[in-house]
């Protein structure tokens, strides 16, 4: 990638902003975001990540983007996974062991129903412009 100019930076920001916001009309895709800070990894987030990838494969869901992120702050309930499905409120799941990961794919993503006992609260509203 070549060095950016000011105009490039602005263009890149707008392009990526649209891409990251699943409510934008052009991108109807599902996002699954796994917390992979030290706390998450210590609680076996990598296993959760693998199970999610596996299960999505098995279900034949090609429109799901799976991403990693840092610590969300819910260290008491690691591993944490955020699921963003268009038309559904974004949901944070905690204590996502392999079983729960499978449920997230088959129940939340496929059947649009939340998974019991693992929903947590996002710690704060987002201050970055929408």
């Amino acid at each position, binding site marked *: 990638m070549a060095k950016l100019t000011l105009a490039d930076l602005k263009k890149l920001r707008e392009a990526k902003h649209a891409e990251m916001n699943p409510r934008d009309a052009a991108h109807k895709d599902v996002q699954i975001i796994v917390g992979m800070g*030290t706390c998450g990894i210590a609680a076996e987030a990598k296993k959760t990540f693998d199970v999610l990838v596996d299960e999505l494969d098995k279900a034949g869901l090609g429109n799901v983007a799976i991403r990693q992120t840092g610590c969300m*702050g819910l260290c008491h309930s690691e591993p944490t996974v955020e699921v963003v499905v268009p038309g559904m409120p974004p949901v944070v799941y905690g204590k996502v062991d392999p079983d729960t990961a499978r449920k997230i794919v088959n129940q939340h993503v496929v059947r649009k129903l939340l998974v019991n006992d693992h929903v947590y609260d996002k710690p704060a509203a987002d201050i970055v412009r929408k």
Partner: protein
Amino acid sequence: MAIKTYLLTCGGTGCVASHGTELYEALKKEITEQGAQSDAQVVRTGCFGFCEKGPIVKVLPDETFYVSVKPADAKEIVAEHVVKGRPVARLLYDKSQSHLNTKLEDVSFYQKQFRIVLRNCGVIDPEKIDEYIARDGYAALAKVLTEMTPDQVVDEIRKSGLRGRGGAGFPTWMKWKFSKDAPSAEKYVVCNADEGDPGAYMDRSTIEGDPHSILEAMAIAGRTIGAGKGVIYIRAEYPLAIEHLETAIKQAREYGLLGKDILGTGFDFDVELRLGAGAFVCGEETALLASTMGKRGMPIPRPPFPAVSGLWQKPTVINNVETYANVPVIILRGGDWFAKIGTPKSAGTKVFALTGKINNSGLIEVPMGITLREIIYDIGGGIRGGKKFKAVQTGGPSGGVITADYLDTPIDYEHLQALGSIMGSGGMIVMDEDDCMVDVARFYQEFCVDESCGKCAPCRIGTRTLLNLLEKIAAGQGTRGDLDKIREVGTAMQKAALCGLGQTAPNPVLSTMKYFEAEYAAHIDDKRCPAGKCKNLVTYEIDPAKCIGCTLCARKCPANTIAGERQKPHRIIQENCIKCGECLKACKFGAVSRR
């Protein structure tokens, strides 16, 4: 028809205890009876905090938050909210109950947290610069390079009221101004990522989750003071943070956001990493700079301050990770916006690592001025196992304890200092009735003995003297005179030690002595440890009248020191007992007692 409404009911221990399960069932029943199965789903969730106001019901997607909901309220919630789409006003959380003086439209609902430093943590992929850029990343640097003079940057930071988040709370703008005004062709920007308080991991998480925010802020500082080079001093025991920083630096260089001629503006700035071996004293800025230069990590007297003579004796701005992470937001949203958050003297937010005997341990970011009560009960979900809150330790080995009497004190630099603790970097360890204050003081003192660099006598000898006295008291051999001695030595250290480590090392013991005098007295006068922690002062015994000889305790005992035949009373052979308390926990008949 698709589900439109989700009713989340808290399934945490606190809410279950206050009839949360009945509420969950009642909501499900009402949904079915009112024929809304295809419109709404009832979901049991993890703990939301706010346990004192439980059971909690949160309605998505409109984020309505109901508190103290009774099973009998289920009918109304379903009929009004789910079917007609009207919130039930009488059950809504009353925001006026909050002690926060933050009045921002951004804090639109019940949440107590406000994430500036952690704005991207848990949101972006830290290994993708594009995602940082998508969330206004490097926009502040672009603004500083094209629209602002160095003086304007300093002025914006001054208006924001940002103070050093490493612990002491020195105004950030002053550091930047001193360095900017110091005449030198060569200057440096340093980031202190040598986080070392036991139980603290704010900086690690910030770097792991959002490494570019630090790089951007350092470049802004570089432009402001006229430095071309930045150094991040980070401990080698943070491998993931280091990896993410290395990736971030590489990506920023590829995009021309670090290196020569940044964004085509002619500004050059680059950042390199220095790995520390994990010495606590290297969090002290002069020791950190010495270590960065390849010397032994020992502090030197100030002045001169690093702002005038720092790295390689050149003017150096040195700030903590969290301080830097605030800077891009201040530049973009303005100092006035930032100053409105928190209290007049302590603006903005503070990140805390909430650990210890708390239900929801974790990384939290709260506006300054929030009370300890709100942190512990509304965010932390209260004390684990329903035990009694005893104290919270802030500021690690440099801080002190805050007791139940001060739960409603606003958390900011001044109030904490007045209580004999400090803000510190943000470790917050919650302690319950099972924690012994003499033991806590001893633990921190031991830490300080290990970490003292040994350069100055008050710290080298003082920390050891205090530890010896505390061990004596914990062993049941202390006298009243020892307490006077601790005060005398501690006060001398506060005045005479060379750097912050030694000056603050007596804080944990002095502060616990101040607030828990009776507990020290019990150790000294009655040779008793009320919390049962100090092993020399505790005896475990089995009551032969209650013991049925189930052998459970004997099997659990790691020292194999419980004797007795099956179905006959057992006894503990005291000589070999290690006072671990496993027998007490194991006994189902209340036959084991602790004295």
